[in-house]
C-alpha cells in the first residue's frame, strides 16, 4: 500500500530579500528528496498574516526580528488559525531567543541556514505539534501589539492601544474600540496577564484600559435598586459596572 502525500506547503517570512532567496535556493535542493511547494513569501509579520489568511501553508519559516510585526507575535496570531501551520524560526543571532528555544525544544534554524538542518526541520514538520501560545509569550518580554480578529475568513488587526475594554461574554470576548466591536476566542485571564500594563480588571468579566477611564458614576443596579459604581470610558456612552470586590479602583484611579 502506498500513501500519497500532498507536497508540503511552505511559506517564507523574512525582511531581507536575499535571506528569502537563500531559503528558496535551499528549498529547491530539498525538493529533490522531499515533495514540497513554496506557496508564498512576505517581508514582515503583518504582510505574512494577511497572505496566510488566504493561502494555506503547512510550514512557515520565519525570521524573528522584523519591522511592523516580529516573528513571535506573528506566530501567536497564526496559532489562532483553525489549522495552525508548523512554525520554524530562523535567526542570525539572538542569544535570548536561542536560549529560550533550546529550553523549550522549539525548532529553529541559525542563519546562514544549512541545507541539512533545513531538510531535517522540514522532515520533522509533518509530525510536529504547534508551539503553545503561552510558550511563545515567554519568548518575548513584550506583549502582542495587536489582536487578530478572524471575521468572515479575513483577519483584522486591532492595535492594542485602540482597545478600550475587553469583556467576556459566554464563549467569546468582546473587544471594544471607539468605533467598533469585535469578538475573539481567547481567555480573559490570559489577556489580563499579557496586557497587564494597559488593562485593569473592574469586574469578573471585564478589563478596561486604565488610561481611557474618564470618570466614575454611581448607578442603580437593575434588579435590586442598590447603588454601585460604574466606569465611564473616553469616547463611549455606555457605563461599565464595577464589582464590589474591585471598588478600590475608584479610590485609586478616581
Amino acid at each position: 500500500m502506498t500513501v500519497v502525500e500532498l507536497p508540503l506547503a511552505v511559506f517564507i517570512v523574512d525582511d531581507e530579500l536575499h535571506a528569502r532567496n537563500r531559503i528558496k535556493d535551499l528549498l529547491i535542493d530539498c525538493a529533490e528528496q522531499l515533495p514540497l511547494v513554496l506557496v508564498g513569501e512576505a517581508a514582515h509579520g503583518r504582510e505574512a498574516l494577511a497572505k496566510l489568511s488566504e493561502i494555506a501553508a503547512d510550514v512557515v519559516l520565519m525570521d524573528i526580528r522584523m519591522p511592523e510585526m516580529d516573528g513571535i507575535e506573528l506566530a501567536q496570531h497564526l496559532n489562532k488559525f483553525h489549522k495552525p501551520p508548523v512554525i520554524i524560526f530562523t535567526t542570525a543571532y539572538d542569544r535570548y531567543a536561542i536560549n529560550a528555544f533550546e529550553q523549550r525544544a522549539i525548532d529553529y534554524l541559525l542563519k546562514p541556514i544549512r541545507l541539512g538542518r533545513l531538510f531535517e526541520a522540514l522532515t520533522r514538520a509533518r509530525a510536529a505539534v504547534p508551539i503553545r501560545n503561552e510558550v511563545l509569550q515567554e519568548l518575548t518580554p513584550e506583549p502582542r501589539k495587536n489582536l487578530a480578529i478572524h471575521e468572515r475568513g479575513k483577519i483584522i488587526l486591532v492595535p492594542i492601544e485602540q482597545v478600550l475594554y475587553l469583556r467576556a461574554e459566554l464563549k467569546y470576548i468582546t473587544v471594544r474600540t471607539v468605533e467598533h466591536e469585535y469578538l475573539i476566542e481567547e481567555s480573559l485571564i490570559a489577556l489580563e496577564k499579557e496586557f497587564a500594563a494597559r488593562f485593569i480588571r473592574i469586574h469578573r468579566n471585564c478589563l478596561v484600559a486604565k488610561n481611557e477611564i474618564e470618570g466614575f458614576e454611581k448607578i442603580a443596579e437593575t434588579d435590586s435598586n442598590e447603588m454601585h459604581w460604574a466606569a465611564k470610558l473616553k469616547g463611549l456612552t455606555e457605563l461599565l459596572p464595577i464589582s464590589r470586590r474591585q471598588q478600590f479602583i475608584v479610590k485609586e484611579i478616581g
Partner: protein
Amino acid sequence: MPRPRSINQNIIFQPLPNFRNLGVVLRLILWVNGLALLLAVFHAQSWLDIAAQMLNISTVLQPVLLGSLALLHWQQPQLQRLPYWLARLGVVLVVSMLAVLIANLGGYWLNIDQADFFNAQLIIISVTFTELVLGYFRLRERALSPAFSAARLQALQARIRPHFLFNTLNAVLGIVRTQPKRAEQALEDLADLFRMAMADAPELVPLSHELALARQYLDLETLRLGDRLRVKWQLENLPTDALIPPLILQPLLENAVYHGIEPMADGAEISIKIARIGKEIHLDVYNPRPQKTTHLGGNKIALANIRERLALQFDLEADYKVTARDDDYRVHIMIPYRREKLP
C-alpha cells in the same frame, strides 16, 4: 619578581604623561599648586601666614612649573622614545636644574644671598614634587590599563555585531548562485572590515581610511537591506589627511542601521555629516527613530566604548554628545584636528 614586558606592542598609554595634552597640563598645574599649598600650610606660623608663605613659594615655583612644562612640551617626542626610567630621570633632572637655575638667577637679580643649603633644599623639593606627580600618572596608567584592555576586548566584540556578520553571510549565500560577482565583492568587503576590526589598531588612522571603511560597511548593509537603506553624506571642508581613532564612525553607522533602518518596513535615511571647523573635526550621525521600537537596548556598549576611547585618547579635548528625541537620534563627536601622528 620582575614585571614581564608588555606583550602588546602598541601601548596606547605611556606611563609618562603626555605633556602636549591640555588635560594633562591642566592637571599638572593643579597638582603642583596643591602640593605647594600643603607646603605653605606646613611652614606657616598662623592662618594669615599661609598666603604669605604661598606667595613666597610661588615666586620660584610658578616660573619653574611653567618653564618645565614648556621644556617638556618641546621635548615630548624625544622623551617618549626613551625607556621609562630614563625618561623619568630626564624629567626630574629638567625640573630640578630649572629650579636651581631660576632660583639663583632670581637671587642674583634681586641681590639675595643664596646659601648652599638653600640650593640643596630646592633640589629636594623639586625632585619630590616631580616624583610625586610622575608617580600619580604612573599609578593612574596602571589603574586604567587593565580596564582599557578589557574595554578593548569588549569593543572588539561590540564593534561589529554578530547579528551583522551572520546576516551578511546569509545574504551573500542568498546571491551566490545568481550574482556570483556581487557575492565575491561582498566577501572581499567583509574581509576588509574584519581585518580592521581585529587588527591591533593603531592609535590614529587617516580620515580617508575610516571613510572608505564606512562606505564598504554601508555597501554590505545595502546588500542586506536593499533600498530600505538610504544614506546622505555631507562632507564639508574635509581634510582627508586628518587623523582620527580607527573604527569610530563604523559603530555609529551600525547603530543607526540597527535602530533606525531595520525596524522600518520602508526603510529610512541615515545622514552623515563631517566637517572641519577651525582646529576641530565635527562628526554627526543622524538617524530617524521608529515609533514602536522592536529592538530593545543594545547600543549602550558600543556608544560607551566610543566615549571611553575618545576620553582616553584626547582627554578633555574631544567632545561626545548623544541627543535622543522622540523621532530621531543624533550622535555628535568633536575631536581635535591632528595631521601629524603623535609619537
